[in-house]
């Protein structure tokens, strides 16, 4: 999904959130047990803390860096052979330098690839969670409740068009939907962060096929400065 489309979904869900908060008051008036609207908005903000387009931007940057370098690095072994054939007496030190350079580039590319893949997966996963979340908020905030608009609910009850218990049941169901979706989204995002953290733990602390030359190929972070 494009960034613009996701932003549009978020904007619409904010309107739906307002509508849902209005419905909470109606539900309370009808005897339903509903949360405070401040509590509902706080839950929304908690989920809204993640800017998935920035995460996607990181993923794009890393994947682009890997793609650009990999397209060149794949030529290095062939270049090395070409050089040895073209200059049969090329010195051992230069030959070793070419080989060591290729090894370091490969090691860094492995780290870059894994880092990019982990970030792409997290961005994609969180985007899917947010899409589902925004749709759930839209459903919870659907302005017609039992066929009447929230603002006209009190009048409809007075006129006997709709029963208070029916309104209460409908709004209670929406509260359940909102709470369940919020829990699922919150837990899902936390899980995505956990997975991303674990993946980068491995990249940061491990030694993914690193050459003996310690200048490159490792991203050991803890206490390595």
């Amino acid at each position: 999904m494009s960034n613009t489309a996701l932003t549009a979904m978020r904007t619409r869900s904010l309107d739906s959130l307002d509508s849902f908060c209005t419905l909470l008051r109606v539900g309370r008036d009808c005897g339903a047990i509903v949360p405070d609207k401040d509590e509902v908005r706080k839950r929304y903000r908690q989920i809204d803390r993640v800017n998935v387009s920035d995460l996607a931007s990181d993923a794009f940057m890393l994947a682009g860096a890997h793609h650009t370098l990999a397209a060149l690095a794949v030529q290095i072994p062939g270049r090395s052979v070409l050089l040895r054939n073209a200059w049969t007496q090329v010195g051992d030190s230069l030959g070793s330098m070419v080989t060591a350079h290729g090894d370091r580039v490969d090691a860094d590319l492995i780290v870059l690839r894994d880092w990019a893949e982990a970030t792409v997966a997290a961005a994609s996963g969180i985007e899917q969670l947010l899409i589902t979340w925004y749709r759930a908020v839209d459903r919870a905030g659907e302005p017609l409740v039992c066929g009447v608009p929230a603002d006209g609910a009190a009048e409809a009850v007075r006129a006997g068009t709709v029963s208070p218990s029916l309104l209460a049941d409908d709004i209670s169901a929406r509260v359940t939907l909102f709470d369940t979706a919020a829990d699922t989204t919150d837990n899902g995002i936390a899980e995505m962060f956990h997975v991303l953290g674990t993946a980068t733990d491995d990249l940061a602390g491990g030694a993914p096929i690193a050459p003996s030359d310690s200048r490159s190929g490792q991203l050991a972070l803890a206490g390595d400065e």
Partner: protein
Amino acid sequence: MADGEMRVDIGDVRDTIAFYRGFAAVSGAVATDLATHEFASWGDGADGGLLRERFSAMARRMSENLRTNGSDAETVADNLDRGLSLIETADAQIALFWRMP
């Protein structure tokens, strides 16, 4: 090839020099991109803060690695270039010597 005979395909070596210079430029540019991109600006709170710190450190380290790789590629190109220049200079001097009466 007989002992002591040296054979160099100048064209292939020049191509290799150009490749390593190109690699150095690209690796340096990617290193700069990683160093200047603001990583992990997408989250706050405990989880986001931790990852922000980690991503920044990883980007910094990867940028340094890529810059080193670029610098090494430039050194390979320089060494090859210097070697070719020596051969070409020696060749020119020998040709000059043989023309002398």
